[in-house]
């Protein structure tokens, strides 16, 4: 199997159902179709990545919650499960920590969850594959295209 589609930490998946691989193009479509999207933004992005994400937020006028600065990630999950956000994007969060946290939404909500981080995240519904640093920058740029 292509290692890029195996969870970055291979044991991180919740066993039966793993995220479908997605692309910047598809993500843009999902945002456009979404009634109420949100980005959950962690601290672990590089400066370059952060700049691109900032532009992405601006471009799509995304509601953002920074974690942990603005809210504890688990509290965010609890909040989202009971909210009417229909699309939640994630990046910059400690990999294994998000893997565990997002299982809450996977089991107990209908929020469409998408990891736009550089590691394949099995427990969202959609995820980018494992990417190198350069590939990731490239993906982020593609998010800004069009």
């Amino acid at each position: 199997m292509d290692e890029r589609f195996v969870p970055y930490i291979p044991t991180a998946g919740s066993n039966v159902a793993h995220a479908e691989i997605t692309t910047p193009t598809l993500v843009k479509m999902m945002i456009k179709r979404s009634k109420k999207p949100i980005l959950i933004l962690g601290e672990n992005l590089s400066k370059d990545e952060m700049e691109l994400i900032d532009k992405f937020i601006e471009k799509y006028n995304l509601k953002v919650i920074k974690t942990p600065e603005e809210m504890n990630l688990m509290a965010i999950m609890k909040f989202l499960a009971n909210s009417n956000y229909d699309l939640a994007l994630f990046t910059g969060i400690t990999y294994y920590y998000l893997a565990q946290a997002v299982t809450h939404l996977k089991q107990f909500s209908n929020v469409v969850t998408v990891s736009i981080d550089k590691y394949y995240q099995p427990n969202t519904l959609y995820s980018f594959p494992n990417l190198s640093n350069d590939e990731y920058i490239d993906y982020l740029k593609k998010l800004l295209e069009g």
Partner: protein
Amino acid sequence: MINLSMSYGDIVRFEGDIKSMTSQLLKLKNVKISGTIKFGENIEEDDDWEPMGPTPMPKIPTLRHWDFKLLERYPPFYMPICDLCCLCTFGKCDLSKGKKGACGLNIKAQQGRIVLIACCIGAACHTGHSRHLVHHLIETLGRDYPINLGNEIEVEAPIARTVTGIKPKTLGDLEKILDYCEEQITHLLSAAHTGQEGDYLDFESKALHAGMIDDLAREAGDIAQIVAYNMPKGDGDAPLVELGFGCIDKSKPVILCIGHNVVPGSYILEYLEENNLEDEIEVCGICCTAIDITRVSEKPKIVGPLSRQLMFVRCGVADVVVIDEQCIRTDILEEVLKTGAVLIATNEKMCLGLEDISHLSEDEIISYLIRNRAGLILDEEKVGKVAVEVAKIVAKERKDRKSLPDLNEVIELAKQCTECGWCNRNCPNAFKVKESMILAKQGNFEGFIDLYKKCYGCGRCETICQRNLPIVSMTTKVGEAYYKDLKFKIRAGRGPIKDVEIRSVGAPIVFGDIPGVVAFVGCSNHPNGEEEVALMAKEFLERKYIVVATGCAAMAIGMWKDKDGKTLYEKYPGEFRAGGLVNCGSCLSNCHITGAAIKIANIFAKVPLRGNYAEIADYILNKVGAVGVAWGAMSQKAAAIATGVNRWGIPVIVGPHGAKYRRLYLSNGEKFKVKDKTTGEIMEIDPVPEHLIVTAENYKECICMIPKLCMRPNDTPKGRANKIYHYVDLYEKYFGRMPPDLEKFVRTEKDIPFMMKDKIMNYLEEKGWKPFEKYPKNPTIL
């Protein structure tokens, strides 16, 4: 015939013939008596130290009403680590997205069930450990050996008193407590069987019960070892002992004790003393055994927490490794044999397939071990002589033995790396192992130097390496070469908090003038090295919180020095007071932390203890601003401890890996409801403490969460202002901004710290904050 069997609280009938009776001192022979004794409350004349409360020896449903109150406010938040249940052959069943299993169970109940099993394993661990201690000590000291913690500790067993209604006076009394624990664990574990409990809230109530049993069992064990081994009894000036890789004298034969059970180590110390060998042989320890042997004697040294176990064994410093129970690497036999050292297993819980040589004489055992390099000795008394004499022989044999690659070999090994990157991916923390390898190929050890500091030595990088590179050994070697100053100090575990200390801090804690009690506990498997916990402790010591520590966290706190080369234990006093740094001892000693909270309710506020669990817990929840931090919590024991602490109403923060426990207790952060005991009125209050157990993603988040979780409804305005001051100040320090939820915790303007008035008022106005019109004088959720 005399036929008596009694368990606490029962009515006992007994019959027998008295055939001979001599003076007042009876020698009984063929006794026949018939009658009824009410055993329990009335058994002891002086058993009226306090009237019995409503819930002595609570069974599973007894405190369910209390649990349901907690769970209503802090409902379980589940993160199912697996979509499946695989516990019975009906399955595996897919429980994801609302599907039920073949037995009818849903995924929430399954998570609660797994948490219950974990808490049962944890509670069984501590109960088994305490049972072993008590059994052993009764064998050597007798059932009547008194429990006396000195004049300054009258409430010797706050947990036992509150939970069981027993005031233990002798080692024998502790047996009754452990009987109760074992019975409860059996019932609780039973409930996890397929086709038993089916409701997630009831699973949680059972997990909370298991946690309480865990707490009780730890108290029994720690009290037993304190009185039997004359460990410090609440001594704030307990001696400073040596800590760290660097303080082990490699020129001597070295005995390394790993685990949690003080008994074998104590026999080693005894043998050394009796034979005047104390200066000839180096005894050191890892994990709680290390802490507990330094409570017996100042001589042994503490290598470090369990996260340093594999690295230290790989160093090859130890000539004999004595293992007892709990938190020992399960591949310890293989690892020890690789270094040429000898392994002695001493506990039925960890036999490792070794031959049981307990029945041999000490001399026979010694020669067996020299021949076979490992054996199982279940007669701990023999371990004393055996370990020492074997160490002497083995140390000579091993004189020039090298266990670690040297730095050049590290480079050569690194060159074999194919850079496949699976080491990074199999690392629980996704550390940059591959990148460290790449640097090392060029002789640049910076990557490994960084790794050495952060890594907790689980070895998963090695196990996946296609080239079988000994990555942990390489890391250890680099650490050894580049960290020269691995010598620290830790205050020996002092055990319980004294009644007099409670009296002096009771009011300031309950009113909030001491901004909080922060307890750093549990394992050291946090993603960024020991230092993080030390720096957290430092932050709160400087702010005059009371900082308490146990176990591996207590060691981690010792593994940082300021610019003067001083550890926090050297800088801060060991008393339970504002700005004090209290090392209670090993994981068993966690009982003294909840014990202190209970004693505040009892000694300061005069709430009766005996069989009065819910009222005490309600008091703590509403009035005692304490928070536990288990930053590297790893095990089922940690799950049980945290859950036990939660049932007492004390919140806990766990590190990011703690998310894998699958369950938190999170409020929704909205206003809480309480009753004012004085007026009977139900009213809305600020949501404090906000959560009962919650993860933090990193160090910064944890630090900022601590002051918040120390807030209590009972805080006076002055007290709350003090707590808010630290909350705001820390948020600004670590995130460069005001806390985004501050408005929730400011009840009225009086809660605003004077120094921050303008800033906070501006913030509150922006948020459209409105003050509470009133808040309760005497809050309760009962």
